[in-house]
């Protein structure tokens, strides 16, 4: 594994090395390794139940790894969780904006918790709301927002404190095609503007293809393959293949498989709240 900053012109912001995590008898993540550089968007691609969310939660310091090591911005996620939290933004899969507050209040609370003060806070909140095209509806209660607006608000919340790394768990699940495209555009803009390292999990092939410079194909807790979409197609000897076919090639199964009752319920609940 590369040491932080070793690669010419880049800094490795996320390093995952042989990560394991199980829940009871179920081993959700089995020895996964990958890295993400500054300004790079990396996609973890896999069906429901592949272990994507578990990996993101370990990187966001919500779960402790059982074995292996993960570092974000050079800090160990288990031993230096406080430092890690200072340099990450996290958008969970379920809808995390508070519907009983306005968009502005959602931002204000997070900005205060991030320690932003006075005019700097005002400026930053206004700047991020503008970046996500939410200025006009900032005074409305979030429960009146469309699904795409809620997602953009959550991304806005997650980047308030200038994080260097952004984790998004299924950012467009349940969104209609237009809203999805807007979220994609905003993520690409963030990646360009702030040169953040961005990790998204998805089970949409078109999403991975549209956004990610590299993808990791995850199946049943194992990283079956990782690389640029082009390199993966190359490797299977069919440059014209779709990512769907790439996934089938490397895992021997298709994206429709996998998932369990609890995850399905979670996805449905999120979709329902998105209306």
């Amino acid at each position, binding site marked *: 594994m590369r040491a932080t900053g070793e690669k010419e012109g880049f800094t490795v912001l996320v390093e995952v090395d042989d990560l394991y995590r199980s829940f009871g008898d179920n081993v959700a993540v089995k020895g996964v390794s990958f890295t993400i550089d500054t300004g790079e968007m990396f996609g973890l691609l896999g069906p429901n139940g592949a272990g994507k969310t578990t990996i993101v939660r370990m990187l*966001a*310091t919500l779960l402790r790894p059982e074995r292996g090591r993960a570092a974000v911005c050079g800090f160990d996620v288990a031993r230096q969780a406080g430092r890690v*939290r*200072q340099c990450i933004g996290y958008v969970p899969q*379920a809808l995390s904006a*508070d519907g*009983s507050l306005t968009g502005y209040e959602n931002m204000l609370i997070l900005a205060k*918790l*991030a320690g932003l003060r006075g005019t700097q806070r005002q400026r930053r909140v206004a700047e991020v709301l503008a970046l996500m095209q939410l200025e006009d509806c900032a005074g409305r*209660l979030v429960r009146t927002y469309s699904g795409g607006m809620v997602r953009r608000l959550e991304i806005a919340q997650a980047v308030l404190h200038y994080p260097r790394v952004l984790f998004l768990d299924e950012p467009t699940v349940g969104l209609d095609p237009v809203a999805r495209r807007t979220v994609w555009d905003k993520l690409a803009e963030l990646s360009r503007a702030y040169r953040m390292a961005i990790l998204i999990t998805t089970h949409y092939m078109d999403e991975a293809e549209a956004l990610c410079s590299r993808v990791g194909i995850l199946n049943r807790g194992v990283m079956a393959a990782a690389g640029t979409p082009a390199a993966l197609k190359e490797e299977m000897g069919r440059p014209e293949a779709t990512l769907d076919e790439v996934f089938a090639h490397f895992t021997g199964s298709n994206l429709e498989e996998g998932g369990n009752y609890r995850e399905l319920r979670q996805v449905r609940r999120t979709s329902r709240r998105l209306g």
Partner: protein
Amino acid sequence: MNSGRYAAPAAVSAEPLVRSAWQALASVLVIAEMEVRKLRHDPTELLTRAVQPVLWLLIFGQVFSRVRAFNTGGVPYQAFMTPGILSQSVMFIAIFFGIAIIWERDVGILQKFLALPVPRVALVLGKAFAAGVRALTQAVIVLALAAVIGVPLRWYLPDLLAAAGVAVLGAMFFANLSMIIAALVKTRERFMGIGQVITMPLFFASNALYPVSVMPPWLQVVSLANPLSYMVDFLRGALVTGQLGHGPLDAAVLTVACAAATAVAHYLYPRVII
């Protein structure tokens, strides 16, 4: 910066320690502010929450005033029970916070907060303090009602302020208790069941409706271990009898209970998401 479980091994000098303590305190207030903002957007809950104490005071209180079953130390029964009803409604409000964090887990709010650069003990204390703020709104409603129906209370400002402080402390204890339960049972359905099983016995095994002296000995022992009794005792002294001899003891017991519950809740809180 770090919660206990994730404490960094590096040596900590005094200055960052002061800064993180200040940051933790500021975060507690921000979380409580969030609660106040929600209440401002939808104040109807304040009224629906007031229905139950109103019924207790008006119906139960009036009927039992006629019975004169208990030796209340020369105090009219409705005045005797008002601190009990106030304490009960504070406890019910605070217990609701356990369901709230399960709900926040389900909609992802909790996950987002756990990934923030905020000390986790501040997240727990913030929720508890928010319960305290709600408890105060409840106290205002119950006391206003008591004034309207002519319950003879002592309206002595320093004691009223002390009572407010103790109500906040009690709310914080019960909010922490309910977050502990939430972290253990993890689903709303199970929490509802457990919540019922816990709140009613706590209420009846306390001095809220009757003096401890009329209880059978075994119940007196339970009442002695029940934090609700200490809250009622303090509020009764401050609002009704003016006898605050046990006041420092009551406040101390509640403070210790609150600190212990905060410690356990802080340890269990991140596990709600697993």
